[in-house]
């Protein structure tokens, strides 16, 4: 019996652009297992980002339901969602989205600040996370003093620091060169595996998708193909 951490049932999202209806997602049903590395692949406009946003509770579905750890997140209030994200979700962005005035250490500790964790405790955890991503020597650097790859490592550390069971990554390597891309992908794969986290990654790049346990192809709001690549779960 597989342990499904994310259950998507009959999910539909329709945008109204002027008087026209645009179907972004069309009756998606999908289960994601705990500890799985799942990749959503599709071209621009396929609806893959919309799906990710709905998994993170950033958008409300037009129809259907998303259950994470058994809880229907589309029914949560903003406040409940914030708490839910604090405890369960880490986020990695394409453009890193670090806060420019804060150091790498402070940026990493951000999610813990929102939880109200005391400074000493959260800085210890952030230091540990930065060491894990290989930035032990850059803790006091500000984002502008770091390369793109280093910034994304801080982004990964930030997503790991509170040990959330789920990490969402939206084109995390979109702004990186191929060498750095490889490093970042390997880092993400290994750390999420070591911490037993579920990783859901959105990309249009099939070479990146090859890191995943399962590749879900999305086109025009529908799941068109699911490729199992279970090297991770097999271990």
């Amino acid at each position, binding site marked *: 019996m597989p342990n499904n951490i994310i259950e998507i049932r009959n999910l539909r999202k329709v945008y109204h652009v002027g008087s026209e209806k645009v179907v972004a997602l069309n009756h998606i049903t999908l289960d994601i297992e705990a500890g799985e590395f799942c990749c959503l692949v599709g071209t621009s406009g396929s609806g893959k980002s919309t799906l990710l*946003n709905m998994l*993170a509770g*950033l*958008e409300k579905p037009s129809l259907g339901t998303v259950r994470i750890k058994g809880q229907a997140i589309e029914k949560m209030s*903003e*406040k409940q969602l*914030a*708490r*839910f*994200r*604090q*405890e369960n*979700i880490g*986020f990695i*962005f394409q*453009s890193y*989205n670090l*806060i420019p*005035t*804060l150091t790498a250490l402070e940026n990493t500790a*951000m*999610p813990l*600040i*929102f*939880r*109200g964790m*005391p*400074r000493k405790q959260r800085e210890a955890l952030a230091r540990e996370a930065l060491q894990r991503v290989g930035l032990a020597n850059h803790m006091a650097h500000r984002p502008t003093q770091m390369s793109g790859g280093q910034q994304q490592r801080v982004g990964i550390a*930030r997503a790991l620091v509170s040990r959330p069971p789920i990490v969402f990554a939206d084109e995390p390597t979109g702004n990186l060169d191929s060498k750095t891309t490889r490093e970042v992908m390997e880092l993400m794969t290994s750390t999420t595996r070591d911490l037993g986290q579920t990783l859901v990654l959105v990309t249009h790049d099939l070479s990146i998708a090859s890191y995943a346990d399962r590749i879900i192809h999305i086109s025009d709001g529908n799941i068109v193909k699911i490729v199992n690549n279970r090297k991770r779960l097999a271990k």
Partner: protein
Amino acid sequence: MKFTDIIGLALKNFLRRKVRSFLTILGVTIGTAAVVVMLSLGIGMSEGFEKQMEMMGSLTTIEVNRYYYEESPRGGRTEPATIDDKVIEAISQIKGVKVVTPVMWRSAKLVSGKYMAWAQLYGIRPEALEALGYVPAEGRLLNPGEHDMLLFGVGATQNFYNPKTSRWGNPGGRPPVNVMTDRLELTLDDSYGESWADPNKKPAKLYRVRTAGILEPVNDQMDWCVVVDIGYLQKIVREYDISQGTFSRDTTSYEQALVKVEDVHQVDYVLQEIKAMKLGTFSLQDILKGMKEQLFMIQAVLGGIGAMSLLVAALGITNTMVMSIYERTREIGVMKVLGCLLTDIRKLFLWEAGIIGFSGGVIGLLLSLLASYLLNRFGGDLGGLIGGGIYAPDGTRLPISVIPVWLAAAAVGFATFVGLVSGFYPANRAMKLSALEAIRNE
């Protein structure tokens, strides 16, 4: 989020745009300083008036007179009124009245050997003396029911002269009569012993009197009076009138009554109660009230001018905050995605605005204190122009501008409040920002 973290992050954001933060604070600084300096001028004037009033007499004393001014739509009318023992008793029952005494005046002559002095006798109930603030400089006050006893005002002891030589007093030296020790006689005939006295006048009785004490100077007419028990004064006046065959005097009504009120704040109430008894009243409070009303107008205008610049500063804060939210849209979105509570986001921006207001308030206050100091030190001419620059009795100039502690505290508090109010709309806007929109914009 913990409170200290909210403050810390707000401070960081505030320090991020130094020039803009500085300019915004400068706006609040000028606004606060304008309000504080304007109000301090008003307070300076008000305190000046009060000091002047205090020089004139006590603010807690009410004079009750034997007429009543009746106001009507067709103009007022003055009606006679009576102050007798029943009225005095009724006034003493009013809440807040410390003491009430009837008052009576009579001019008289004091005789001591070859010297004489004209004396204004002031009849009063001795038990009221202490409450009215009279303190003996020498000797003691009068005791109730004490006849043949005098209590001198400090100026009244200097009045002795020799009618034969017409030499007044003893300039540059001791007064010719020491009222505490020398033999004294009192008569109500004020032409007694004078060369111009009417030879056909029936002789008036001379009363042998002694002095209980001499009062500390109070800088008003009392310094030139001789205080006696009002019962004693009534008695000798009656005897004098009988001796002169003119006894027809209405001795049941006193000329005046003095009321001492417990507390300055009760004076208004007591005044109203006495007026309701259809008696005329006079109190320095009446004058002060009129002045204060005028002053209030002046202060309102001055404060209003200051408030205008603070309003402009408030718009400056709102503008700065809105701009800063535009710039930080993405950051706010990321914070939301990372699980920051909406209320915490609002708090962050509110505090940032509050910090701007508070800093502006503090700097503005310091600026005002400096301006106030300079005004008081060098602003003499300006003081005359706006009605300040009053001199105290000892010759020191009263300050033009006064910043009491409450004004200082209120200025900083109000500036912070203005900051918070100005930040409220931007903070709400930041809170409502869609996280998705925020992270989507590239």
